[in-house]
Each structure stands twice: as C-alpha cells, then as structure tokens.
C-alpha cells in the first residue's frame, strides 16, 4: 500500500517553496526591494491620511453639528436695532420654525497671540444661560470658575498657546474717549461650538460665569456693545438671505459689510452652510490634494514595480528556465513573483499606514489652527483596511500583467539564455556619422535603445515635476508675492476704509482724506443687497470701475455704461446667464433690466454677488448714499498709523469708523497662507524625494544590468568618470524631457486646477502668479539635481572591475 500525503499538506508544501523563492528573490535584490518598500510606505502614508481626512474629518463636523444641535443660522442683532418689530418679524416669519435668543456683549479686542497682537471680534456670553439649540461644550480639561474666569475657544490654545490658568488680556480702544483699555481674564477651560469657535467668520465667543459676565458688561458699559443673538431653525437654510433682507428693510440698513459698518447697527448673519464652508474648506482642499498626491505616488510606485518585474524576469531568465525544467508550472512561478511583490507592497503599506496615525495629529493641528476644530482620529480599521487593499490589489494586477509572458517561456531557450539576448534591430546613432563627443553619442545610443525605460522615467518626471511646480506656485503666492492669493476671497484690496456718515455732505471730507500724506487714491465702494431675477444677492456699487485695483473679472469687463452688470461666476451659473444676456435687478418695488457685460470671481455671499454702477443703483434705491471710502496708501505706509491719524483728524459725526484693512487682511489670510505655503513646501519636498527614490531605483538597476557592458568598456579603456558621465547623460535626457514637459504643464494648468478646486469658493478662474523665473529655476534645479544624483548613484561603477568581468 502506498502512503501519500494528503492534498492539503502537498499544497502547503508547495506554497512554502514558493514563499522561500519569494523571500530569496527579495534578499537577492535588497536595495531595490528596500527602495520599493519606501515608495509604498510614502504612498500608503499619503493615501491613508488623505482618506481619513476626506471621510472622517468632514463627518466630524456633521457629527458635531448634531451633537451640539446647531441651528440653521444665527442673527446677531445689535441692541439698537433689536426692536419689537424685528423680534416679531423673526418669530412670525413663515420660514422660521424655532428660535432661541441670548444676549452677548461684543468687543473688538487685540489679544497677544504667539508674540503678536491680533484683532478678534469677541462676543462675551453667559455660560449659565441655558440653550436648547446651538449648544456649546468643553474641550479637554476645564477648571472651576473664579472671579474673572473665562472659557475660551480651543483655537486660542492651539494657535495662541494659552494654557489653563494663564492670563489673557484683551486690549481695546474706547471709541468715544479713544482711551486704551484692557480687561484681563484667567483661562479656566476651552470650548467648542459650531458658530463661535473659529476666527474666520462672525464672532468668537468667550464664555464667562454669570457674575463675571455682569462685571464685564459693566466695564464695557456701552449700548452699541450689546447684541442679541437669535438662533433660528428654518424650513430651508436657503431662506436666510430673505429673512436678513427683511430685517434690513425693517431697520433701514443698506450695507452688509462686516468691516465697514457702524458697530451700533452692524447686523451679522451666518448660516450653517457658510460656517461649514469656512471651517472645513481648508481641510477639504488639503485632504483632496493629499489623496490626489497619494494617487500620483501610487502610480509612480506601480510604474516602478512593473519595470522591476520585467527586469527581474529578464535577469533571472535562466533561473526561471531551470525552475520550469524541474517541473514548476508557470502559475507557480507567477505566484512566487506575486508573493514577492505583495510582501514588499504589504510591508511598505503597513508601515506607511501605521506611520500615518502619528502624522495625523500634525495634520489635525494644521486644520485646528484654521478651523478651531479639534479633531482627534483614532485607528480606523475600515479606512485603513481599504487603503491597504487598494494598494495590494493594484500591485497584484500589475504583477499579473507584467509577468504574464512567463507562460510562453520555453525552458530550453530560457536555460540557454537565448531569450535574454536582446534582439537589437536598429543601430541608433551610428558612431561613424554621429556629431559630438563619444560619451554623448554613446549616451544617446543608450537612450534610444532603452526607449520603454526612458518613457517611464519621462512620465514619472512629468507627473512629479507638475506637482512640484504646483507646490512652487503655491509657495510663491503665499510667501513671496501674496497679491494674487489675497484676491482669492474676491474683495477689493485697499489699505484702509473710512466709513463716513451718509447723512452728511462728504465732499470736503473726501478731498481732505485724498490730500493726506501717503494717500495714493480714494474711491467709494459700497456693498448693498439687491435682488437679481428674484434672488437675494450682494451688490458692489462703484461710481467707476476703471480705477478698481483688484480686477476680478475673468471674462468680459466691469460695467461702464448705464444698465450694465457684472455677475459673479457662481451666480451666472445659477441663473444660467452669460455675457450678452439680460437680467432683472430689483430693490424694493423698483426693477430694471441690466445687460451682462462681464463675469467675475468672488465668494461674497457664497458667490451670489454682482457689480453695478452707483448711478444705476441710485435709480433703484433713491435713498442710497455712499458710505465706504476705500483708501489706497503708498507702498510701505503703516496703515495702523494712518487709521489713527484719520480718527484724530475727523470726529465721529463724520467718520463713523475707520478700518485698518491691511491688518484685517493679514490676520484673515495668515492661517490660510501658512497652511498653503506649508502644503506647497511639502509637495516640493515629496517631489524631490520621489525623484530621488525613482532615480536611485532605476539607475541602480541599470548599473547592475549593464555590468557586463560597463566591464567591457572599462577593459577597453574607459575610465570610471567617463562611464559615470555617459550613464548620467543617458538618464538626464529623459529626465530633462519629463521635467520640461512637467514644468510647462504645471505652469499652464495650476490655475485651471485651482479654479476647479476653488469653484465652490466663488473663484471661477484662479489668477495665481506664475513667476517664470521661479518656475524655470525649479525645472532647471530638478534637472541639475537629477544629473548630480545620477553621478552619485553611478559612482558604484568604480566597483565594477574589468578584471572581474574577464575572469568570471
């Protein structure tokens, strides 16, 4: 009786053998395996991080909204205009389902943040006031309250560094006496609420114990500092503008600009969609870029894996032949290759995924600094599992495709090495006719003979250079010349704004301001609300648009003649209107037709904004009078000093308020600038890292494959330097082609890409500065870096001995 092993044991034994082959192959090519592991590590790190942010960060905010029962909107109505009429209007409004009102004391204060004084619109609220909707909560540890305790938004800890029991001093100027005053509190804890925890939109809330709140109210003691916050739940959040407009009509407000309004009548309306956009926008953009970048790195990894598989099959052809001759099937051999590369991809991916978790708090801190949202991500098996599987499945597919011709390999031919001898068909760059010196001619020969490899190198360089240029442009626009970046929100950029009393004759005042030292130019620019085709929109109103400094029109022009209008791109899309079409613009009962002459960028009111001439608006709104005077100063002028001079020169009866626009822009843009600049830098660094890895991988493999050829060249008298130069030039050629194409594509397509990603912000056509010197320098630096790196990597040719070759 013949005993035979059970089939499961036989199968297990075969798999064990294949596993041994896979491990042996990995050991044999340690440096290329290590390089591949690192590439997969980077890919997995980016992919997992990106997916976690895309999937979990977005839902984090939604969960927070649910947890805190955030309302659909809030209306912060100054006490002066919070009349019974307004109260009734809101309560009885058909769209309003639920309201909750609380009192707040508002104060524009300067607070020390990382060594610098920054301005914050603070709203003090009483922690003991009960809320059914739009609740708030403590974040992290909090201490019991004492006299002058305060519970501040977490962003003050994350960005400004205020710890528990630290003193936080709020400096402010008394508007009447112009006296500098201060209130100091002791930090007792940190808070989170949906609307008042970020510095980007509306107020930022400081929660005070009851007695402290009363004390502060007494200290500030000005009616214009009291505001009533009405939280509302609506039938549809899209009805917020109509309710706001109703309030404005009731109290006869005709300006909606937060910065340029008299505080005593400043109505602040924020809806939940806007706050979500403001708080999650940066994170959404960055996470989308992380995922996109991860996909690019994965593609690069896969190109390199495919290249490696094809090369290793070529190098090991005799071994494959011998395996086949002793009875291994093609399927088994392919399986061992699958095991080999799955192991490499698996190890790299697992480490990358594991590393992404300690990296996430860094990413989270970056988001926290902009959004005030303290997001903590624990291990997410689902997302990480998906990231891992995506990478493995793709590697599996690539291996199956690349290794498929093993099936057709004849063992005898493989053993003889006949299939390894490349069948060269054309003798490119015949030395007899070639121009230029010998190493260059030989390098060109090599380029043309390894066309597939060089196409791969060029493609990889195109991809990474494209993103490198993208990073350079982002860095440049947020660090070197920030003009274009500052224009993204779609505001007219000046240095200061004087809000003048519309009831008074402003002519003399404007002339005087114009003649002040360092003033380059002044012009009126007011923001009002109108209806376009029945839709509430914000309207910019100017006497003339030719002196506008921030040109936001990307198609057509600004209005010049009567009844011309420029629509924001998003609005135009909603109304399905383009240049040449007619729209109806109305204010109150008055309506007129306007011809669309231009389309513009602009995020004001969610991209629902227009630009019209003042004379046209005056026909719709007879009561309209200019109020906001935009002041443009000479370069280098201190806007803060100018504002002080302005306030000293004119009394409050004429100058309602003066705004330091420079400071506002700087503070508003600072966190975005830092984040985007950092992102640009990270992309640059990753680009260089990927280029280094790919070149190291390809060149090292090439030197190994060309060992015989290089040995022969050494034998006939080529020096090590000549061979290094020859090889480096041969790699620099496809690198140069790839870098040039990638640089050009990056230069031309960064703005269209940014337009696509910032469309929801009202930026239909991004106009980031593409500085040619920087771009070209980056391209040249990539090429020079690659050449030098090639020389360093090919230095190992010195170990190739002609003697070793001939005596092997």
């Amino acid at each position, binding site marked *: 009786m013949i005993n035979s092993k059970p089939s499961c044991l036989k199968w297990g034994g075969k798999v064990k053998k294949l596993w041994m082959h896979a491990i042996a192959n990995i050991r044999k090519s340690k440096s290329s395996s290590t390089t591949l592991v690192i590439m997969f590590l980077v890919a997995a790190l980016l992919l997992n991080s990106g997916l976690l942010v895309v999937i979990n960060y977005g839902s984090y905010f939604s969960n927070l909204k649910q947890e805190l029962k955030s309302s659909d909107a809030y209306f912060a109505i100054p006490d002066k205009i919070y009349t019974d009429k307004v109260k009734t209007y809101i309560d009885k409004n058909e769209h309003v389902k639920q309201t909750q009102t609380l009192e707040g004391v508002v104060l524009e204060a300067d607070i020390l943040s990382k060594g610098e004084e920054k301005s914050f619109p603070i709203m003090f609220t009483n922690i003991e006031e009960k809320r059914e909707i739009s609740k708030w909560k403590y974040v992290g540890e909090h201490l019991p309250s004492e006299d002058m305790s305060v519970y501040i938004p977490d962003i003050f800890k994350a960005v400004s560094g205020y710890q528990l029991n630290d003193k936080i001093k709020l400096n402010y100027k008394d508007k009447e006496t112009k006296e500098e005053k201060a209130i100091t509190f002791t930090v007792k804890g940190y808070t989170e609420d949906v609307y008042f925890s970020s510095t980007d939109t509306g107020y930022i809330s400081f929660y005070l114990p009851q007695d402290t709140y009363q004390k502060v109210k007494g200290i500030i003691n000005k009616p214009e500092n009291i505001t009533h916050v009405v939280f509302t739940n609506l039938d549809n959040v899209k009805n917020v503008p109509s309710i706001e407009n109703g309030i404005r009509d009731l109290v006869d407000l005709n300006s909606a600009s937060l910065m340029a309004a008299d505080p005593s009548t400043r109505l602040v309306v924020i809806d939940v969609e806007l706050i979500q956009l403001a708080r999650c926008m940066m994170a959404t953009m960055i996470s989308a870029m992380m995922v996109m970048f991860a996909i690019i790195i994965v593609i690069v990894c896969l190109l390199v894996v495919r290249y490696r598989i094809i090369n290793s099959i070529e190098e090991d052809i005799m071994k494959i032949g011998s395996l086949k001759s002793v009875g291994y099937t093609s399927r088994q051999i392919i399986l061992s290759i699958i095991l080999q590369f799955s192991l490499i991809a698996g190890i790299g991916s697992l480490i990358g995924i594991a590393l992404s978790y300690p990296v996430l708090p860094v990413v989270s801190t970056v988001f926290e600094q902009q959004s005030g949202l303290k997001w903590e991500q624990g291990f997410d098996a689902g997302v990480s599992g998906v990231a891992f599987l995506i990478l493995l499945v793709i590697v599996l597919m690539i291996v199956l495709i690349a290794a498929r011709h093993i099936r057709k390999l004849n063992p005898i031919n493989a053993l003889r090495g006949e299939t390894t*001898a*490349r*069948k*060269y068909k054309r*003798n490119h760059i*015949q*030395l*007899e006719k070639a121009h230029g010196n*010998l190493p260059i001619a*030989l390098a060109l*020969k*090599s380029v043309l*003979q390894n066309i597939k490899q060089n196409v791969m190198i060029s493609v990889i360089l195109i991809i990474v250079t494209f993103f490198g240029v993208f990073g350079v442009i982002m860095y440049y626009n947020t660090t070197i010349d920030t003009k274009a970046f500052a224009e993204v929100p779609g505001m007219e950029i000046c240095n200061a704004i004087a809000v003048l009393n519309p009831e008074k004759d402003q002519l003399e005042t404007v002339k005087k301001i114009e003649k002040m030292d360092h003033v380059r130019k002044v012009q009126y620019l007011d923001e009002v609300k109108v209806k376009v085709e029945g839709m509430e929109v914000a309207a910019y109103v100017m006497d003339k648009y030719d002196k506008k400094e921030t040109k936001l029109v990307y198609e057509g022009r600004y209005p010049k003649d009567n009844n011309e209008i420029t629509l924001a791109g998003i609005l135009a899309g909603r109304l399905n209107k383009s240049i040449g079409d007619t729209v109806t613009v109305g204010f109150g009962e008055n309506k007129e037709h306007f011809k669309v002459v231009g389309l513009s960028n602009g995020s004001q009111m969610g991209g629902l904004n227009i630009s019209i001439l003042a004379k046209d608006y005056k026909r719709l709104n007879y009561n309209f009078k200019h109020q906001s005077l935009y002041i443009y100063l000479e370069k280098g002028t201190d806007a803060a000093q100018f504002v002080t001079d302005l306030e000293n020169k004119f009394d409050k009866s004429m100058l309602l308020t003066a705004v330091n626009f420079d400071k506002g822009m700087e503070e508003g843009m600072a966190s975005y600038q830092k984040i985007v600049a950092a992102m640009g830098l990270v992309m640059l660094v990753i680009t260089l890292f990927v280029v280094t890895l790919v070149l190291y991988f390809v060149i090292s493999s090439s030197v190994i494959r060309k060992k*015989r*050829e290089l*040995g*022969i*060249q*050494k*034998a*006939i*008298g*080529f*020096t*090590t*330097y000549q061979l290094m130069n020859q090889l480096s030039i041969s790699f620099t050629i496809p690198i140069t082609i790839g870098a040039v194409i990638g640089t050009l594509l990056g230069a031309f397509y960064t703005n269209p890409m940014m337009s696509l990603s910032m469309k929801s912000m009202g930026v239909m056509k991004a106009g980031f500065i593409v500085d040619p010197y920087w771009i070209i320098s980056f391209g040249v630096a990539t090429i020079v870096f690659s050449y030098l790196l090639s020389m360093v990597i090919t230095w190992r040719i*010195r170990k190739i001995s*002609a*003697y070793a*070759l*001939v*005596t092997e």
Partner: protein
Amino acid sequence: MSKIILKTNKLNKSFKSGTQEQQVLKNLDIEFYEGDYTVIMGSSGAGKSTLLYALSGMDRPTSGAIRFFDAEIADLNNDKLAVFRRKNCGFVFQQMFLLDNMSILDNILASGLLVSGDKKSIVANAKELLEKVGLTEMIWRKFPTQLSGGENQRAAIVRALINKPRVVFADEPTGALNSAAGNSVLDVLTEINNDGQNIIMVTHDLRSARRGNRIIYIKDGVISGECVLGKYVSGDKSRHDKLKAFLSEMGW
C-alpha cells in the same frame, strides 16, 4: 638582441579568499621582446591569465614592478591604468566581449574614438582592418548576436588593433570557437605578427601555441621553462615536434 618591451621584477600576485591568501604569481622576473609572438602556457590555475592581465594593466600586482616600454605601471590607479590600456594595449578575449547593443563597426569605433578625435582617419582605418580580416561591409553593419563566433573574434581583433597598440594581449582567443573559426583567427594573429605587431597570448591549446615563436611555461606561479620555436611556418612539423617535446618536459 631584440628590444625589451615588457619586463617584470619580482612580480607577485595573491588573492584573498576569506581569511586564506593564495599566492598565484611568485617573484616573477620575465622579459618580453619586440616583434615576438609570445605564448604563455601552463596547467589550469598556474597563473597564466593572472600574468597576462598584470602585464596588460587589467589588474594590479600585489607587489613587484612592471615596466611596459618606458612606463612603470604596477602602481598606477584604476583610471590611469584605463588610460594606459586604451593607448598601449589591445585585448582579444575568449568570450570576445563585444558590446551587443552596437554594430561591429561601432564596437571598433567606440574603442578608436576613445583615443583619437580624428574620426575620419579612425573610420577609414577601421574599415581597412575589417576588410583585412575578411569582414565585409554587410557584416560590419550587423550586431554581434547576428554573427558567428569566428566573425566576432575577428572583429574583436580589429578592435584590439584600431589604436595601434604596442602589444596585443590574447586570452584563449580560440577557446570558444570551432577548429575552422579558430584557424581563421589564428591566421589573422599570425599575419599581424608578421607585420610587426607584438603579441602575448595565453592558451592551453597546442594548435594555437604553435603559432608563437616563443613559449613560456608557468607552473605554480613561477616560470618553469622557455622555448624558442622561431617564426611560424605553416606545415613545419619540426616546430610542432619541438613544442611537444618541450611541453612534455614541462610535465604538461
């Protein structure tokens, strides 16, 4: 007395294998003369190829001096040896070692253009030599993988000659060839020696050894004997007998 072209003084070469050191060449003192077709013979592992490559600058000796015409080459570094080799030495290997990725003509020009920038004369010279060894234009446009062993080896000889080397070093040039191809290669070597080319050849093949006018026998890293056969004449049985006797005496 013929001029000395190569001379060694207490030439030693040893190889390390783990902790073991194996001495292959032991205090060799030997001279080579102008116009000679010198054949180095010996049993396997005697040190023939080691000596050949030390003499040609392909490898550095462990100690001792090598004077190659006017140059002391034993202490040159790798790059200087490479420059020295390209100008002074031509190599013919058993495996030919032609570059598979370029045509026969390009293989020769790659060597020639390394030394001289005068492309016109290098190309003309290459073509002339190729014709001389019986390789037509149709053949020199082909890749090495498309030719026979004999054709490749003759092309390798042209590559060795393109820079007018002072010495041609041949290591078992017929080892990978059948007898007809081998004979054609040996005929070429004999012809160039008759034209004045110095040749030093390693072989363990009697038929190849007969072509030389001077036979040196190496045993265990030392010269154990020398035999002068005189110029090769085809069909000269006495030379063959003399060689056989000498080799028998050496214990071959």
